[in-house]
């Protein structure tokens, strides 16, 4: 103990304490999230799920979406949006919305997987809508080439040909798709969250969606064949890089060429 009390005034003590605190918090958080994941279950809904979901909905969502999810002037009705929409919006943390604005942002999910499942069960019970996709459509074993063609036709104009995302009008944007789970990508396509159009099964077939997810996961794991992609944002980031780094090197060489040797 004596040694510890002597060392507590050491200049590095504060840093060590901070690191320890961060590690403990992070570790606890990781444990908590894996506990939640373990509780995840299949897409079948029991009547108790619906009942529990109704309670969660009344407590957390009804302020804006209204009792019975019938909508209000602040938020749309959720009758018939389906379990897919709930699983996407709540599962990616977009709902409950942090504040009003052009677009709901992705943030750490407020509900664990079981609660999300119960909310989805409740909303699905209000009216038929797109369901949570089956595992077989999310196995990332479709045709990546076909998926790439579908992606470039239907998705690339907003989400960027390399799925790096892009700006829309008045503060809205299409997010980057790297790191988004296959399930959430599928649900976004069938439900059309916020300003994204709906890509129903009649437009892009379930197999086509599987191909698109396969393609996205493939480009995510493969990376850019040409080296650093600078965010795959096109002329803005590339131009900035060339102006700063490229011109910088040229200026450095000119200075060296004209300087005297010692």
């Amino acid at each position, binding site marked *: 103990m004596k040694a510890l009390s002597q060392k507590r005034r050491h200049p590095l003590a504060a840093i060590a304490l901070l690191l320890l605190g961060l590690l403990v918090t992070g570790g606890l958080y990781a444990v908590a999230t894996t506990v939640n994941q373990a509780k995840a279950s299949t897409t079948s809904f029991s009547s108790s799920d619906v009942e529990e979901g109704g309670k969660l909905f009344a407590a957390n969502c009804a302020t804006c979406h209204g009792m019975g999810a019938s909508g209000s002037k602040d938020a749309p009705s959720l009758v018939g949006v389906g379990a897919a929409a709930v699983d996407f919006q709540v599962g990616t943390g977009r709902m409950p919305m942090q504040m009003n604005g052009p677009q709901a942002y992705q943030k750490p999910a407020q509900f664990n997987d079981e609660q999300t499942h119960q909310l989805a069960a409740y909303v699905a019970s209000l009216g038929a809508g797109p369901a949570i996709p089956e595992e077989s459509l999310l196995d990332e074993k479709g045709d990546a080439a076909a998926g790439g063609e579908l992606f470039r036709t239907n998705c690339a104009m907003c989400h960027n040909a390399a799925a790096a995302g892009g700006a*829309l*009008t008045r503060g*809205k944007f299409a997010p980057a798709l790297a790191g988004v789970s296959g399930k959430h990508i599928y649900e976004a396509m069938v439900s059309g969250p916020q*300003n994204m*159009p709906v890509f*129903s099964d*009649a437009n892009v077939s379930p197999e086509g969606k599987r191909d698109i997810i396969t393609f996205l996961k493939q480009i995510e794991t493969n*990376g*850019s*064949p040409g080296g650093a992609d600078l965010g795959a944002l096109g002329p803005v980031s590339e131009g900035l890089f060339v102006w700063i780094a490229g011109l910088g090197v040229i200026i450095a060489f000119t200075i060296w060429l004209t300087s005297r040797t010692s």
Partner: protein
Amino acid sequence: MGNHSDGSPNHSGTVATAGQNEVEKFQDPGIPPHRLRLADTDPKAAKRAERQVALLFGASVVGTLIFLVAYFAIDLGDDSSIATIRLQNALLGVGTAFAMLGIGTGIVHWAKALMPDHEVSEERHAVRIEEDRVAAVRIVDDIVEETGIKRRPLIRNTLLGAVALAPLPALAVFGDLGPRPDNTLSHTMWAPQEGKLKRLTRDPDGTPIKASDVTLGSAFHVIPEGLNELHEGKLNEKAKAVVLLMRLDPSSLNPSKGREDWSYNGIVAYSKICTHVGCPVALYEQQTHHLLCPCHQSTFDLTNECKVIFGPASRPLPQLPIAVDDEGYLVATSDFKEPVGPSYWERDEHERSINS
């Protein structure tokens, strides 16, 4: 100190010239004394610079070898992964950079550190020598005199005529750069063929779209029926005919007179080619019903017949009149009623002929 109170620029403050009005001339300071480099005086330093230059040339050799090894040793077979391609690309780039920069920097360092660096000044020539000028004028005069161009107007005039006519063949050749596009820009594949209305089909697979497939909030990327069967000029036809199909709540549409029957149950079809410079306008926001062009941010309001609400585009996107056939598939009842895409010289003329 000099007296500055008279405002004269000819007085220098540093030289005591107060009271005198002499103009001081700027003295040529000459070349500064030569400063010897380290390598000029110290043989060790010279030896070191020599080694550095050799090292840079050696780096170039290594770079070339890296390039060759990367090119021949890394096998890019059919089953090679992106990681292999990336590795080869990186090594080829690094190898080339070392090979070129090694030689370049080596030569520069050699010249700067070891080659003689004595200053040389070269005197400027006198700007004009009067005798040369007179001689040149005399040569021109001689030419005019000896050709006799002043005395023989027949020769002068025929020469002028020949030179004036000579460029005419070039004009004829430039004419062959055409033909002018004529009316190919003003009509698309959507025009009914032999009375048969063209179906709206999905891009890229070309399957027809049923009106019931288009759910509220949907956006379909559409090509005309038969486009995929074209063998020649497919991309040119596609570039004119691509359409975006969307379904809105019918009550949110505000069709103008004569365009009420161009949509079907809230399903509308608009040309995807921006009227500004022809980028594909396909960024559809299903809640605000805005269509955004990604190139210059022209924004079109779908609820008001794609009126321009922001950006440099000057005309709304052309609407494709659609209906449903006996089997429930969406069809185009006619071609676009105006030329699609950006402006061109004959556009107004073409628009008048379409609508007459």
